[in-house]
């Protein structure tokens, strides 16, 4: 069982991701925007961060950048959950240090495939 945080300002998406991950036996944390996530993650470590890109207060790119600056998060996989899989956004994501991306809409199986791929073992 891994601990995964899902960051999205749309609660529907958070719940959906959460439900999928929980049903696969993971422990799931939630945050409604980048800032909340950052505050939550500062003191603890998780195995995977799945974050939306466009969010109020702090977006996913910024969150990725800030997390990467923390020693505890230098190697934790961070996946961007986005509808904008455009080139600009992608290179931005890459530059910020994200591990991968998944485009909305996605199915549960797709999400789980990605998760099992990025999580060690």
């Amino acid at each position, binding site marked *: 069982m891994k601990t995964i945080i899902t960051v999205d300002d749309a609660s529907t998406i958070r719940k959906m991701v959460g439900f999928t991950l929980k049903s696969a036996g993971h422990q799931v944390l939630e945050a409604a925007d980048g800032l909340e996530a950052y505050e939550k993650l500062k003191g603890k470590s998780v195995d995977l961060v799945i974050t939306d890109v466009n969010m109020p207060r702090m977006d996913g790119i910024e969150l990725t950048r800030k997390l990467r600056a923390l020693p505890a998060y230098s190697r934790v996989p961070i996946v961007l959950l986005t509808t904008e899989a455009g*080139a600009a956004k992608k290179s931005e994501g890459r530059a910020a240090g994200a591990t991968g991306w998944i*485009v909305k809409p996605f199915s549960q199986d797709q999400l789980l495939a990605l998760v099992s791929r990025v999580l060690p073992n």
Partner: protein
Amino acid sequence: MSSESFDDFQAELVKDFLLESSEGLETFDQDLLVIEKGEFDPSLLNQVFRVVHTIKGTAGCLGFSRIESIAHTGENVLSLMRDGELESSPDIADALLKLSDALRAMLEVIESSGSDEMAGDYTELKAVLDAIKNGEQPSGFEPPLEEAAAREPESVDTDSDGAWGFFDDEPEQETVAGGELAEESAGVAQAKEESVWGLFGDDEEPVVEKTVQEAKPVNVPAPVASKAESIAGATVRVDVELLDCLMNMVGELVLSRNQLLQLSYQRMIAPSDVSAISQRFNQVTTELQQGIMKTRMQQIGTVWGKYPRIVRDLASDLGKRVELETFGADTELDRTIIEAIKDPLTHIIRNAVDHGIESPEVRKAAGKSESAQLLMRAFHEAGQVNIEIVDDGAGIDGNKICGKALEKGLIDVEEAGRLSEREKINLIFLPGFSTAEKLSNVSGRGVGMDVVKTNIEKIGGSVEIHSVCGEGTTLRIKIPLTLAIVAALVVKSGDQRFAIPQVNLVELVRIKAEDMETSIETVYDTPVFRLRGKLLPLVFLDKFLKLPAREAVSRSSVSIAVLRADSQDYGLVVDVVSDTEEIVVKPLGKQLADMPIYAGATIMGDGSVAIILDAVGVASRSGVLGAAQKSAEALSNEIEEPQDTGEKVPLILFSLPGWENLAVPLEAAERLEEFDPSVIETSGGIESVHYRGGIMQLLRLGDLLGFETSFEGATREQVIVYKCGGRYLGIVVGENRDIVEQTLKLENIGSRPYIKGSALVNGRITDLVDVDAILVRTGLKELPESALCHG
């Protein structure tokens, strides 16, 4: 993954989605209007973008492909605007507002049917949005396909629903997507067909396959048909702090209950124990009541939010220019009341734009600004909420209204002749006055003002209208804060108790029993009471309800509760006024429900039932207000100047020695002065004084009126100064007594020179001096027009 529990979960997600989306769309229209004007900060645009963006993303995940696709086209336009590549314009705003309508409509379809397949056809809107995207921004956004392939998949809108990928491993390697990817792992193999996610490192350039919409369409059980309220109306957001506070108080309540239970087991109960517990109960319930009330409170802004849009659309349809301003949008009201005033307010707003406000040309010709002001204001006052809708439009022409009412046979010619300007305007509230076809009241279109009035009165409110022809109209709505608990006056009549809602109460008057005979008169068989010079028609509650009347002997006094109904006052005579109390309003049973004189019932502290009286109902049933008009007419014969009636005129009251009550209108007078008799010079029989660098002739009113006056011993001369064409005239009067505001109902005596007529002022017959005639006589004014001369 499609287990039973998952379906339930999906249904819950859909509910969340609907709620979240409608919340997001709440301020969407308003924000767009701000953006249209161009006065906004970028964060607002980002916020608007995010609303559509979130809807698109979530809808996609839930399998609502149609809503996703339309949201996507809107998102494209907004994204260009956000990036500064597209300037906002009315056309774009139009399209985006239509998008907001479309999204709302689709959400509704999802809510009722569980899927968006039944949603209307929005291909046209989509085309418009796409045209805006492409037309206004010919280059850059959507690169040609080859180019896109050479770089990276551009965005989801390229039909190719992206994929997933890794950033790390081989950042710059170009590979053909899919194949390699699939070999990575079983999980990826699964993903291959959909190509929806990816790791940046794996594959930098996945050539994207056409994506089958993989996310399953969700089957949501259709909501129960009777559920009229939409999902947004069915839920409330409550501050967690408030909720904690409520929980705290419930805890207190439980403690108090335990104490009470314990007490009830004791054989001997000390009175002090009981009072301690009841005090505690009192405190806890009061706090709990306030707390719960707060959870039901909503800002009126939640309703107003949609008005800028309505005003904008309507104004542009009609070719008018209107600026809507709102004040007090944070004024809080009970949810049920907010619901109830939504449609009436919409109707009033529409009316104001449609009928009240003129076209820019007409406004310009009338010397007004081309763009009309429409003001909405809400504020608390005396435990009620006031809502004002003010426009600076054409106003209401009372005579036109009157003509229309005559035409429709709502009033007869005789009645029409008797109406004051204000009463004429109030004709628009008559049932059947509106010509509009009855369509639906959702938009407020096709509903007459009578419906507006009835709906507002139904919730214990009132509507007043003031209009000045050519200057504009003000509509004032007063509504109670809540319906469930109201402050009421408890009275007794015929040994029964009744409650009168405080909002209807103007004042209380107590008359001693021995004064009853003298102070209550009868005009046209209606008992009236003279209250500060005005006739107050009375209803004796015991007689009206045919209650066993108390014997006159046993009364030491009676009380008159002065009530206001339809902006007219009448007195309700009761035996005893007990107290004011907060009462809980219970609806009446079926058998009594259609009796308009009762507003409900309540249970008093001692467990007995008291009926709540409906002030308007009692008035109309007893016919007391019709009688009031008759009695007022009985006192004043023909009205000389109809425009004087109904409007209060400030008057200077003065007296001459031996002529007590005289008055002149304050309006025409320039100043009131006092002169020492020694400064008055007489030459050629004409008295004059030095005044403001010139000479002012003085006229003694007593002489003019042919009333011999001697001013022996007068140390100061009281003079009312008039100015006409740069010349001053002073009229010497005896003694200035007072300045009052008075509705003038002149009784035209006319036989005496320089006296216009007589009127009842503060209960005294007062003669109104005809200043015009005096000015004409002295040559200051030429034409004996009825209009008074101003400086």
